[in-house]
């Protein structure tokens, strides 16, 4: 019995069907964590990419060091660090927020590189033309850089969404009750791991496929006339 749903272990099929509502609750947690984490990654990554272009060396070097550090250390270590060490500094976050933050932080390091590549792909001559036409920095980003950058970076950003979605189960190690966490608990109580764990895998598969399809659709729908895409 979990969340008011009892399981029926008579046959694998009845077992699978009976735990579906429980896993469904876990799925919502998984999707929420991915959504929050991805939102953090998209925004923070952009901030990091822009700060890295700062003309103040202290800022750009600090940011470069930070992204490199985050990219080159395991997500699991960062997650444990945030979960067990932050409270020592008086920052106590719910397990879910800690998990989403860890995902977002790690992926912001990846997305910042994507943004950076997208910005660097704009030839210097276009920045100079924008200056010569007296566009402000903001106008240059809004009208010149972003419209050319977005179609180039959407595929990479989309890939990171899919891979982040697949990494959300690590949150179960810090007590977040996502799909994997719940499947694990069902296994502990019924001594039957095969069915719940297989179900988790089976539910992930269509999710990632749908996600990839959505990204492809977005990619196709973006206006990209005249923009040379590698």
């Amino acid at each position: 019995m979990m969340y008011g749903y009892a399981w029926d272990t008579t046959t694998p099929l009845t077992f699978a069907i009976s735990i579906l509502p429980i896993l469904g609750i876990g799925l919502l947690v998984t999707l929420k964590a991915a959504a929050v984490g991805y939102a953090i990654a998209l925004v923070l990554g952009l901030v990091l990419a822009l700060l890295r272009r700062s003309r103040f060396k202290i800022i750009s070097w600090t940011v470069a060091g930070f992204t490199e550090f985050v990219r080159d250390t395991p997500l699991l270590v960062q997650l444990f660090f945030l979960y067990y060490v932050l409270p020592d500094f008086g920052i106590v976050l719910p397990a879910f927020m800690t998990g989403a933050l860890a995902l977002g932080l790690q992926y912001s390091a990846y997305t910042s590189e994507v943004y950076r590549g997208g910005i660097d792909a704009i030839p210097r001559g276009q920045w100079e033309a924008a200056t010569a036409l007296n566009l402000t920095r903001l106008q240059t980003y809004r009208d010149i850089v972003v419209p050319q950058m977005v179609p180039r970076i959407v595929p990479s950003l989309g890939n990171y969404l899919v891979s982040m979605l697949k990494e959300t189960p690590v949150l179960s190690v810090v007590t977040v009750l996502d799909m994997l966490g719940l499947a694990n608990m069902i296994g502990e109580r019924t001594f039957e791991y095969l069915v719940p764990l297989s179900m988790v895998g089976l539910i992930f598969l269509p999710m990632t496929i749908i996600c990839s399809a959505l990204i492809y659709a977005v990619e196709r729908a973006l206006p990209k006339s005249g923009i040379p895409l590698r």
Partner: protein
Amino acid sequence: MNPIIRFENVTKRFGALTVLDNFNFEVGRGEKVTLIGPSGSGKSTVLRILMTLEPFQEGHLELDGISYHEPNGHGPFKASEKHLHKIRCNVGMVFQSFNLFPHMTVLRNIVEAPVAVLKMKRDEAESRATELLRMVGLYDKKDHFPSQLSGGQQQRVAIARALAMRPRVLLFDEPTSALDPQLVGEVLGVIRDLAQEHDLTMLLVTHEMRFAREVSDRVCFFDKGRIVEQGDPELLFSNPQQPRTREFLSSILGEQAPARESLQRVP
């Protein structure tokens, strides 16, 4: 009458390399000046400094009475972004590699800055752009993307784009150097027409000697960051005084003599 551009002892360095050394130079209102000289002699740097694409370290520079450095200015330009914005209102530039925005149609390329910077109404900006496109002979290409145009056509659009901002000073940085020889004439034709405008001050860096002779009021020969010789184009080309000028002219004219008998006009 006051000159519109005044360089006073301007020194510009790239690291250890001094590109302009105590440089003095004045341009009168409406004057058409051509800068010639070997590559690396500092002539493009003069334009890039005027366009605020490059800062300079020492000396004084004024455009239309506005000094480039502010008394308490910070950063490499020794001026605030707001101040640089004010300076740029009077200058436009045409680049060697056109630098059109590839994701915008020809018309949008021209309309962009008047709408964003001059706060012009879009339909007003478009009718101005249409006029300019007719002038450079490309009205029928207004809905094309830059990648669909030839180099010569792209450069003519770039000229129209610069003119849409109504600059008092227009800078041309080797506008035909990136073009195939058969496309040079159409761009020079547009520049020649512009040279008829009395109020527009033009600074042109070029290797087209015949053209320089035809359109400019004054030619300046640059070598190693200073003007070695300058004066009336007829005099300078037919009777150069300095040995360096003579050497440069004979090397470049020797190359160009057989080519380009006639410069076509744009229809």
